[in-house]
């Protein structure tokens, strides 16, 4: 593992075996999560963002999903050990899940158990990873965490049931719960997609503040380019189970190399520029069915620059500048392109 990374995903292949057919949900996904930084993962629905995250947590739906290949290396800061999460016995994985790697989800309305108070649910997370702690200490910790995430009157709200809170507050509770164990990585899977922009801004601000306060890495998964632009240090762009481009945030937004990244950026109307009723260049066509992906480069049916080679062979990943990689025949060397 690279010294500056806390997590490295290497060549991950995940397949779903369903009644409707076989879906290769991930096909050689690799990305690194740098320590104390935020990695933004963007892409449209179904491209495999959540499946990658769930693979890290080892929470893929069983028995349909199978990890066919790959490694997920995690550096345990306490012991300094590097461990491949995919080889870990379930017992051991439980000490990492929710403790060293926490995750929050898209739907704050349904992510909390309706029959227990939010306090109970936070205490439970604290106690399972700190068996020596007393019930009372766990409750104090829960109140402290609710306060940290900006819930007013936490001593009172700790006894609320989830339905007594709004969506924004529940997402704060989820964050409080996820951070109550001081994790090294927080995986946030579309944490603000279901929320209003004003509440989204509050939650993102909170995550940034807590990252500084607790010193952790964040994997911020979203389909909203604006969200990652202002909250991530590095970006990975996914399309149909592959990472098509990876780069530091500025390069992705100012100098995108992959036609898909370029198309995504050209799809969103912007507050800072663009005229009224102007045509949005965007991307033509629609996502191919995951059961029946096209041959060659998966993006070629929608790519304005596609040429013959794109239709038959998948492009390899090439590094075009330090930390900036892209999978596209346009950016491979001339000789490999026409061989």
């Amino acid at each position, binding site marked *: 593992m690279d010294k500056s990374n806390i997590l490295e995903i290497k060549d991950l292949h995940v397949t779903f075996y369903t009644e409707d057919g076989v879906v290769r949900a991930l096909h050689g996904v690799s990305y690194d999560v740098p320590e104390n930084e935020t990695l933004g993962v963007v892409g*449209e*629905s179904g491209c495999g963002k959540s499946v990658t995250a769930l693979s890290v947590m080892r929470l893929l739906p069983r028995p349909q999903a199978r990890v066919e290949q790959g490694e997920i290396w995690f550096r345990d800061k306490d012991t300094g050990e590097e461990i491949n999460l995919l080889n870990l016995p379930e017992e051991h994985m439980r000490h990492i899940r929710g403790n060293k790697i926490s995750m929050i989800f898209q739907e704050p309305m349904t992510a909390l158990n309706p029959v227990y108070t939010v306090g109970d649910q936070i205490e439970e997370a604290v106690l399972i990873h700190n068996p020596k702690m007393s019930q009372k200490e766990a409750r104090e910790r829960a109140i402290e965490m609710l306060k940290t995430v900006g819930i007013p009157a936490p001593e009172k709200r700790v006894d609320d049931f989830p339905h007594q809170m*709004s969506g*924004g*507050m529940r997402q704060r509770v989820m964050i409080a719960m996820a951070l109550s164990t001081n994790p090294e990585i927080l995986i946030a899977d579309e944490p603000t997609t279901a929320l*209003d*922009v*004003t*509440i*989204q*801004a*509050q939650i*993102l*601000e909170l995550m940034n503040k807590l990252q500084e306060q607790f010193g952790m890495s964040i994997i911020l998964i979203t*389909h*909203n*380019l*604006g*969200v990652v*632009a*202002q909250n991530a240090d590095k970006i990975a762009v996914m399309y149909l189970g592959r990472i098509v481009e990876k780069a530091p*945030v*500025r390069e992705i*937004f100012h100098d995108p190399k992959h036609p898909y990244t370029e*198309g*995504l*950026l*050209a*799809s*969103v*109307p*912007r*507050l*800072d520029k*663009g005229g*009224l*009723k*102007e*045509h*949005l*260049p*965007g*991307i*033509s066509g*629609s*996502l191919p069915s995951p059961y029946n992906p096209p041959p060659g480069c998966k993006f070629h049916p929608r790519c304005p620059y596609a040429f013959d080679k794109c239709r038959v062979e998948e492009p390899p990943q090439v590094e075009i500048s330090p930390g900036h990689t892209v999978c596209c025949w346009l950016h491979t060397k001339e000789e490999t392109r026409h061989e």
Partner: protein
Amino acid sequence: MSDNNSDVLLEVNDLVKWFPIKRGFFGGVQGNVKAVDGVSFKIKKGEILGLVGETGSGKTTIGRLVLRLIPHTKGQVLFDGIDITAMDYSKFRPMKKDMQIIFQDPYSSLNPRMTIGEIIAEPLIVHTKMSTKEREKRVYELLELVTLRPEHARRYPHEFSGGQRQRIGIARALALKPRFIVADEPISALDVSIQAQITNLLIDLQGRLGLSFLFIAHDLSVIKHMCDSVLVLYLGKVMEYGTNADIFQQSRHPYTQALLSAVPVPDPDYKRDRILLQGEIPSPIDPPSGCVFHTRCPYATDKCKTDVPELREVAPGHLVACHYA
């Protein structure tokens, strides 16, 4: 907005909608959800009016009121100068074909047991006396208009992607050649690249067919991209109302400014003053006194807690409901 009245297609005056809250089997009315509370606006022919606001601010309710899909509590909705809220339903029925709606959810708004052709032809059967031949021709025309292919007419909704279903919804809304369309978050459920395609399609159709739109969205970037004029709602009340430039270049209401500053911009180097709103939208059952926004307004004074600000014209056609605008 002080233009010649003959240009105005839809005029809404002081529209109010309260939903009574009832409790129990024998329980009486225990209060009202003040979903829409005195809203006025005009939509000119060929104009898109954008409606924005946080969840629960009353956007959908207004959309349904102006189409008379739900009864109103008070106020007027004038379509072509005729008050459609006051007239008999039987008289209103023939006017319905001039006013159509496109829904947010392309998955649930199409009947799964009807073919696309049947779905699009349905309003034609109900409202016109077209022959089967004419109907078929019109369906093909409509499919072409929304860039679908004629052979799609024989397929069922589940065979289509989200973007294609939204196109079908648009074709259905256009079947009767309406002059006015309410689009309630027509792109929010779609993928980014598909959002762009549908946005382009709507703009194109609006220009070509000279349609008027009431366009509901919570994404201000989309509103800025599409709408000629904009109405900012908060708790069922108008906070600010003006042209695209009024709202996006010189907004005067702190709520509009806060909304704008919360929109994520896809540029890591974009800098601006952020107004981070505290708290959340209060309950419309028991809205705050004075200015309804005062509980979250960073500039609120004592006056704001007691006095309701009136919607003032701060520049021609630019209206703001704030004591300090």
